[in-house]
């Protein structure tokens, strides 16, 4: 019996992560979800947050934006607009991006722009959360 999952995290820019893992925790739209191998096929949305991956007994964290996840018994495919490994997050940059997004929100924006800024805000917040958790 297969006891690993093939996890693929793909963004429009690149394939960020592709490996066999033992377990993955996703930031689902209705709360966190832990996925083990042989999960029931599931299609769901995720929100900006952190994905934690367990591989070989070690945990790995990624900051992701919102997107979609397709889960079959053997495979978890994550399609999102941002994915950064915790080690690659630049805390200062994320902090600055968050401040800039917050400043933009105060201005009057149309719906389209508000959505863009909110997404940017969520991205930077997710990065910061993942990074700070690592530091602890």
């Amino acid at each position, binding site marked *: 019996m297969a006891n690993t999952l093939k996890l693929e995290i*793909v963004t*429009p820019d690149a394939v960020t992560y592709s490996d066999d893992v033992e377990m993955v925790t996703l930031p689902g739209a209705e709360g966190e979800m832990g996925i083990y191998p042989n999960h029931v*096929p599931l299609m769901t*949305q995720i929100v900006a947050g952190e994905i934690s991956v367990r591989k070989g007994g070690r945990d790995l964290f990624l900051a992701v934006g919102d997107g979609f996840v397709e889960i079959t018994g053997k495979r978890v495919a994550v*399609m999102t607009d941002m994915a950064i490994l915790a080690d690659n997050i630049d805390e200062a940059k994320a902090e600055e991006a968050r401040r800039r997004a917050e400043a933009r929100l105060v201005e009057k924006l149309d719906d389209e722009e508000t959505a863009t800024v909110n997404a940017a805000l969520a991205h930077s917040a997710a990065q910061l959360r993942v990074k700070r958790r690592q530091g602890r």
Partner: protein
Amino acid sequence: MPSTRDIRRRIKSVKNTAQITKAMQMVAASKMRKAQQAALAGRPYATLMNQVLGQVSGCVGDFTHELMTKRPVKKRAVILISTDKGLCGGLNANLVREAGKFDRATTIYIAAGRKGSQFVARTKRQLGAEFTYKDAPLFSEARAISKFARELFTKGEVDQVDILFTNFISTLNQKPEVVPFLPVTEIKGLGMGLEDGAQLSKDGTEFLFEPGVEGVLGALLPHYLNFRVYQILLESKASEHSSRMVAMKNATDNAKQIIKDLTLEYNKLRQANITKELLEITSAAMAMS
């Protein structure tokens, strides 16, 4: 018979032209590299998206989304993705030839890029909207196009939407292609060079949806369509710059050939002149003696 001065002047002007085309070739080459990278980087995402949607839409049961409903085609829209600038070889000419094949009475054109809208205006066809996109296409630009097309479709003004664009196959090969956009009935790749297609799977794997089929598909379909337009914009840009680079390289090569021919002619003429003068001098000297 042109004089030596005429030929010299022509050589100079051809040299100037060659310099300009050479510079344009360099610019296009550097832009091409960027555009190609962007197009290639987007492909895994597009492939995965196709696979997922293909699998999922095979197992939604009775549920149909309004973007997936097939209707008898009375009116159709074509999203025509062309370039803003010319001087890129036969790219736009080929594109326009394909665009002219649609029935003029029942087709509404949605133009992205100035050359396409010029064509629609020139042939007095129906122009639904005109969009612009930058050298490095932005996702928001793609979203605007896709949103407009979706609204036309959901309001029932058109029953089918296709996209006509130049598929990037390699630096030397780009092909105008028509791909279906709406309704989403089958998930197909864009042929060779672009992502792999994925067939609708009918193997009966039941998918759970969280939070519900409607919610997930309702979010996934528009995103899929937006991204499809975005990827197509990237591919078109890569085609444009490749095509321009090749066209400019040909122009530079031609100019060099012309310079060579003209120089030869110039030297021949110059020698003929010298020989003529020598002959005159010697014959004059012979007459004197």
